[in-house]
């Protein structure tokens, strides 16, 4: 196997509280390979977006990385000083946010924002940068890009703005894009277009993507592999097809069972009883144990690490000893 582009090892993110501290991410480990699209699913508050923010070094204080390592190829990036990390952002790792309506500065033109980003990372003069900006807009599917480049964000529709955002994220030719729910705020019809643009652009530019979403449809459509998060931990990682067809972790099984299907007639959707624990009340052992239907004694005592199975990795004691 080729060297991983991004390796996250035992990442712990904490928020200090008055007396205690909340562990928002607890020993998260995963790899992203060059050119790969990795999906991140989970309920709200599971730590998907936080993982993305930690990787790109934009955790909102007082949140901070308490332990663990993040490697971008051969470079450890979780302890870089601010300015070195800044140079890396946009150039090697870029990020796309959820809401295209608020992601663009309302009083600067698209040209202004694109050219500044390009010139931050590439040694181009104004004219070359502008040409590249127009080319990028053209690639993401903005019609008449050379005219529209001087427009302001409010002159674009939501879907068009998300295309501009993608162009901005790609401006420095990054190796990895962290897309934090890039389609959640858009119409369903536009969602598919944006996913399509993202997939196509990443294929053309050989960019890897970490796609954070809670939409399993988007995951199935776009991703190569998927990581399922629960209460700040990774429950399961594997090939998308495997996870959709044959989920291993009881949580993933519940998650898949709760997706409505139009091909099968089901009277009632299965649902997972209870709700995700608050960060200050995560049970000992497996975080999912109070809601788990296949719980064994060990689940309330020891916390399972990711165990390799023939389908991927799963953090569940049921698979202990299943050698691939």
């Amino acid at each position, binding site marked *: 196997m080729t060297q991983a582009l991004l390796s996250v090892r035992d990442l712990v993110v904490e928020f200090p509280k008055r007396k205690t501290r909340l562990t928002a991410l607890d020993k998260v480990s995963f790899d992203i390979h060059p050119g790969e699209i990795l999906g991140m699913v989970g309920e709200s508050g599971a730590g998907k977006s936080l993982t993305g923010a930690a990787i*790109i070094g934009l955790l909102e204080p007082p949140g901070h990385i308490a332990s663990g390592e993040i490697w971008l190829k051969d470079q450890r990036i979780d302890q870089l000083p601010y300015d070195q990390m800044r140079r890396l952002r946009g150039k090697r790792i870029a990020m796309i946010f959820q*809401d295209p309506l*608020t992601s663009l500065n*309302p009083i600067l033109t698209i040209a202004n924002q694109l050219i500044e*980003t390009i010139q931050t990372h590439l040694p181009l003069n104004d004219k070359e940068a502008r040409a590249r900006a127009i080319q990028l807009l053209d690639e993401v599917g903005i019609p008449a890009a050379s005219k529209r480049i001087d427009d302001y964000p409010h002159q674009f529709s939501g879907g068009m703005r998300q295309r501009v955002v993608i162009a901005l994220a790609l401006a420095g030719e990054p190796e990895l894009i962290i897309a934090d729910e890039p389609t959640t705020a858009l119409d369903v019809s536009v969602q598919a277009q944006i996913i399509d643009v993202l997939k196509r652009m990443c294929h053309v530019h050989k960019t890897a993507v970490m796609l954070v979403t809670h939409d399993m449809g988007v995951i199935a459509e776009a991703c190569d592999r998927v990581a399922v998060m629960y209460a700040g931990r990774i429950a399961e990682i594997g090939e998308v097809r495997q996870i959709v067809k044959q989920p291993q972790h009881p949580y993933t099984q519940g998650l898949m069972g709760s997706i409505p299907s139009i091909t099968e007639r089901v009277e009632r959707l299965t649902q997972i009883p209870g709700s995700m624990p608050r960060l200050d009340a995560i049970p000992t052992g497996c975080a999912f144990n109070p809601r788990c239907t296949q719980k064994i004694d060990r689940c309330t005592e020891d916390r399972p690490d990711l165990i390799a199975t023939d389908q991927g990795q799963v953090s569940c004691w049921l698979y202990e000893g299943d050698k691939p």
Partner: protein
Amino acid sequence: MIAMLIRRLIQAVLVMLVVAFISFSLFQFVGDPINNMVGQEASQQDRAELRERLGLNDPIPIQFFRFVGNAVKGEFGISYRMARPVSEVIAERLPATLELALISGVLAISLGIGLGVYTALRRDGWLSHFIMSSSLIGVSLPTFLIGILLIYLFSVELQWLPSFGRGETVQITENWSTGLLTVSGWKSLILPAITLGLFQLTLLMRLVRAEMLEVLRTDYIKFARARGIKQRSIHFHHALKNTLLPVITIAGLQLGSIIAFAIITETVFQWPGVGLLFINAIRFVDIPFMSAYLLLIALVFVVINLIVDLLYFAVDPRLRATKRSAGR
């Protein structure tokens, strides 16, 4: 753009007419002008003649239009107290007030924005905490007290700066004398300018700080950071412009009130401006002067508001677009 300019101008004229009506009514309702003008020995007949001569027997609307017509020409009648044309007196005193207001306005806006941005960017620095706590003084102490304290400290105790007056002035044109060209003029200006501008300064600073913190939390700033844009550019190119949008409105209004309410500062420092004149005019029920002053201040506010609207228009592209499509 032009349509909106015309609309704003019409609004401005309407506002001025309403204010004109109010200052016109001063003549009608604040005592009998004839009583104020003639001596106690004047006979009933003299009074009636004067009343006729001044046109006070004409119907009210006609009197009002005459008043507006004269006001447009800059004629507000003769001051009761000084027995000179009001316009002449105001023209003589206005430069002093405008100079004072200009310097305190510049002081308030530049320091207000500068310190506001500084305290927003260095939120947890000790200097920011110090600035923020001392700004409470500026917000809470009344103007006259600040003036008196400054006089006590810098004029009485330290004897660095004069406590009253304008210092030496230089006559530029017939009506315009300036203190900005002499050392003693500047020295005299410092204390009143600080006194007058301190409240506006602290207000603007706190507003800028709050707005800046708000803007720094927005998605587009986060996205700019995620693209690796330099810190300096994020603060001063991406964030500051957005911060200043709402600040423009407040700063404009504050500038208006600096001119209008220089009265207290001018009284404390015996600054020979129109505010001081106004206080004296009230004491003597000098109605022509009062009504002229009222109109003048209204004009200042209307003009500043007009400029603020135009500035907004120039700074915010969203406004241009909506106006364009609305005008179609």
